[in-house]
């Protein structure tokens, strides 16, 4: 058992520097920024209480994201009103299926097109994805975790992460493309 001062030292040395990852992921995950900050806060408090289980030298960021994900799952289970976020699982599945064809984006430089879209448009589109897929993109693409680390965080096989990541990107593309057209970007 570690004393409070040692726990404090470890918390501020090992975990505190990664709190921005927790906050960012929560804010991108949820529409409600207050709920997102509450979730991030709960995550950091849980991490403090569970500090004795964290092993020095392991990936603190992945550990915190695991706690965040578990806290989110607990929250969904306990609060039925949060279904709103989960419901999105169904919305984009059909979109994803429709978007497996060749890219239709014009101009051909997709990078340029995506640059023209603001961050908020990307985030809005991201939030329309099913939550598990959103989680995958947040972990793999936004936070840059290895797919194997993301699999650990999400407690799913590596193959699942790979397929979710691909599906998520494709779905995102299919959401963004009509918006880019609407905005006259293509």
């Amino acid at each position, binding site marked *: 058992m570690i004393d409070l001062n040692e726990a*404090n030292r470890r918390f501020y040395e090992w975990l505190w520097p990664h*709190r921005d990852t927790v906050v960012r992921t929560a804010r991108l995950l949820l529409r409600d920024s207050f709920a997102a900050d509450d979730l991030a806060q709960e995550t950091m408090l849980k991490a403090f209480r569970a500090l004795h289980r964290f092993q020095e030298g392991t990936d603190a960021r992945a550990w915190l994201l695991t706690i965040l994900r578990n806290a989110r799952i607990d929250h969904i289970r306990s609060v039925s009103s949060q279904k709103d976020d989960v419901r999105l699982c169904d919305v984009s599945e059909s979109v994803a299926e429709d978007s497996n064809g060749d890219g239709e984006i014009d101009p051909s430089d*997709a990078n340029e097109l995506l640059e023209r879209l603001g961050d908020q448009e990307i985030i809005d589109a991201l939030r329309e994805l099913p939550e598990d897929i959103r989680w995958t993109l947040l972990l793999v693409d*936004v936070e840059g975790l290895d797919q194997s680390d993301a699999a650990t965080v999400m407690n799913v096989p590596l193959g699942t992460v790979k397929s979710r990541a*691909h599906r998520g990107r494709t779905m995102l593309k299919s959401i963004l493309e009509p918006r880019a057209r609407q905005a006259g970007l293509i």
Partner: protein
Amino acid sequence: MPTSNQDNVSAISRRLAKLREQPLNMSVFDAKLKALLPPDATGEHLQRSLRMRIGTFLSPLRAAAALLILASIAAAYLFLVSAQPVSASPQEMAAIYERAVADQDHTMAVSSIDEARAAIHRKWPKSPDFAAPGNMSVMSCCVHEVGKRQLGCVTFTVDGVPVMLAVADAKEICSPSGEARMISGERYVVASSNQVNMVMRQDNGVWTCLMGRLSIERLAEVAGSTRAERP
């Protein structure tokens, strides 16, 4: 050429990565989180207590250090002031002359320059050596203080007029700012007070002043035949 689906997907991956660069305002979050953490578990608390402990420890040290600095400054000032030679004021020199000639000071009766030098050396072991023409009629000698700096004085007569030769370490006593004159190839500072003329110069680390109620030129002529040097 149309962009392939794979390229577009990769582009989306790259675009998502840029969301990480979005600035995050963490101040409110940090404040709330710290408020919820156990009091001893906040870094600020520990840092504050550490600062207080260090501060408590340092307070007497700081005071001592401040005193030490002040003492050092004062000592340095005193050292610098004491290291500076004192300027011999013509008025003061004239007064010394008057008392020496009137034998009002604790003068020592001597009959030669050598005796005078020996007598002064006894009272002031670090006194400069000096020499003057042997045909002078030496009357007396004494050791004075000017601004707590010692000054060896010998009185003798030149042309029947009492004259005083004062010698001091040039590091301790120097000529006052005054008229500088080149006489017979020597540079003198000349001054006068109460009709007592003075010619002063610095040579071999020794300051000398020859004074009396003689002309500057005559005093300079006599001074030219005196020599002085540090012991």
